[in-house]
């Protein structure tokens, strides 16, 4: 236990150090004229811009817009993905019926549908939510499906031996047993929903971090552009870490076998 804590702390220290070193290097290569700041800006310039965008409120507005689309898309993906996944995991016919769409979704890049969504929903939030929803849907659906479908045979047999009925097996064994797998799917879905929002915002929006990145990019203002990029990275890290934490807590629900 003690070495465990020490190791974790050591990892944290090393990670922070390499992070700082990269930051310093980034600053130095520009200060010494090795790389043109137009391409990569500098940490100090990005910091300055961050303060500006915080003060004029634009960063907050853009972050809020992105999070709003993200929450809508993820919420939809969770409801639809878990709903369909449970259905397909429990009923073979439902799985067979849904299979072609899943193959389709796996093979075709979702962004390709972007113009179609613009035609249907116009530029802005509805299209962004639709794209991000499709991004997040697949892992949530696929994990829910496999979690329900691969219900532990031994537990099922025990339940059957005590006279369990199909709905008992579904609610008492299959559903709780699938929770760790579903949460793992959610973690993937969260990252993909955020990616979907930002990608869609790059193409057409009037607010949001993706929009902000595209806007400053067109203006060739690298330092300003770096602010929303860093914010997106930070959001991604926070959201994924939060889900990883929940995932670890459900890990104890995984079935262990003695032999």
């Amino acid at each position, binding site marked *: 236990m003690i070495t465990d804590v020490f190791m974790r702390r050591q990892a944290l220290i090393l990670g922070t150090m390499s992070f700082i070193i990269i930051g310093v290097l980034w600053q130095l290569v520009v200060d010494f004229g090795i790389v043109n700041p137009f391409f990569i800006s500098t940490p100090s310039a990005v910091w300055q811009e961050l303060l500006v965008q915080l003060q004029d409120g634009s960063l907050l507005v853009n972050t809020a817009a992105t999070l709003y689309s993200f929450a809508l898309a993820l919420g939809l993906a969770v409801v639809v993905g878990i709903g369909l996944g449970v259905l397909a995991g429990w009923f073979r016919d439902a799985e067979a019926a849904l299979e072609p769409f899943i193959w389709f979704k796996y093979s075709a890049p979702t962004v390709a549908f972007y113009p179609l969504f613009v035609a249907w929903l116009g530029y802005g939030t509805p299209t962004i939510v639709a794209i991000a929803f499709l991004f997040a849907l697949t892992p949530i659906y696929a994990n829910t499906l496999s979690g329900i479908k691969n219900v532990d045979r031994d537990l099922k047999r025990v339940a*059957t031996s005590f*006279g369990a009925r199909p709905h008992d097996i579904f609610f008492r064994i299959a559903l709780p*047993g699938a929770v760790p797998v579903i949460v793992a799917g959610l973690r993937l879905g969260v990252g993909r929903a955020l990616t979907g929002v930002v990608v869609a915002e790059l193409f057409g929006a009037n607010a949001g971090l993706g929009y902000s990145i595209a806007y400053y990019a067109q203006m060739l203002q690298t330092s300003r552009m770096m602010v929303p990029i860093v914010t997106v990275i930070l959001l991604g890290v926070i959201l994924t870490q939060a889900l990883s934490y929940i995932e670890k807590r459900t890990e104890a629900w995984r079935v262990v076998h003695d032999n």
Partner: protein
Amino acid sequence: MAEIEIRNLGIDYRKPNSDEVFAAVDDISLSIAAGEFVSIVGSSGCGKSTLLLSVAGLVKIARGTITIGGRPVSGPGPDRAVVFQDASLLPWRTVLGNVRFGLEMQRWTGGDLTERAMSMIKLVGLARFADYHPHQLSGGMRQRVNIARALAVDPQVLLMDEPFGALDAQTREIMGGELLRIWEGDKKTALFVTHDIDEAIFLSDKVVVMGRNPGHIKEVIAIDLPRPRTQEILDTPQFTEYRRRLRAHLAADMAGMHFMEEAA
């Protein structure tokens, strides 16, 4: 009257991914009296688990009949409970929750479920661990929960499929003694599958020796040792004699297997 009556039982297996059907066990007849403790031994693949699971109502009977207290077996029933080799506990439930599980599935009406479960947990010596989750327990403790779960539904017949197979030798011996202590309490009819000869003799009134291809009964040996038994009995001449007889049986079976493998 016999509690469990098996007559000319045959169970077929379908090879995975083919239509080929072969008999896992064939023409098995066996009578077990109420309150008798019967072990089934045999080399792997002799169908001893299949026989037990058929009494549990968990595999389809192809030929013959099984009756329990006169009623034919057609599926699982509240008159029987199974202790599987894998403890198969629900990881999201506590010890208490797991012992309650069988009662819940059977829609137990014999009183308060938690009270009933707790008394079984005390019986297997886990009172202090009622709130623990399975991953916090040792293999032996998990198997105690498994046994408590089966006993909780108060079955007429207790069916055990190599319940100590995954435990280390020492824990196994302790669990055998514990099982006898618990069983002596109300002497339920018990059917116990094992590949451990000592374990079979130590626990049983009768040891059924099975052979392979297809699974059949070679001999039923009555174990005439006084009860209650303790580990000291393992060193008595009678015990040694039973052990010798059973070993000879199984060795013959193993030699046959070896011969067949070489022929193939």
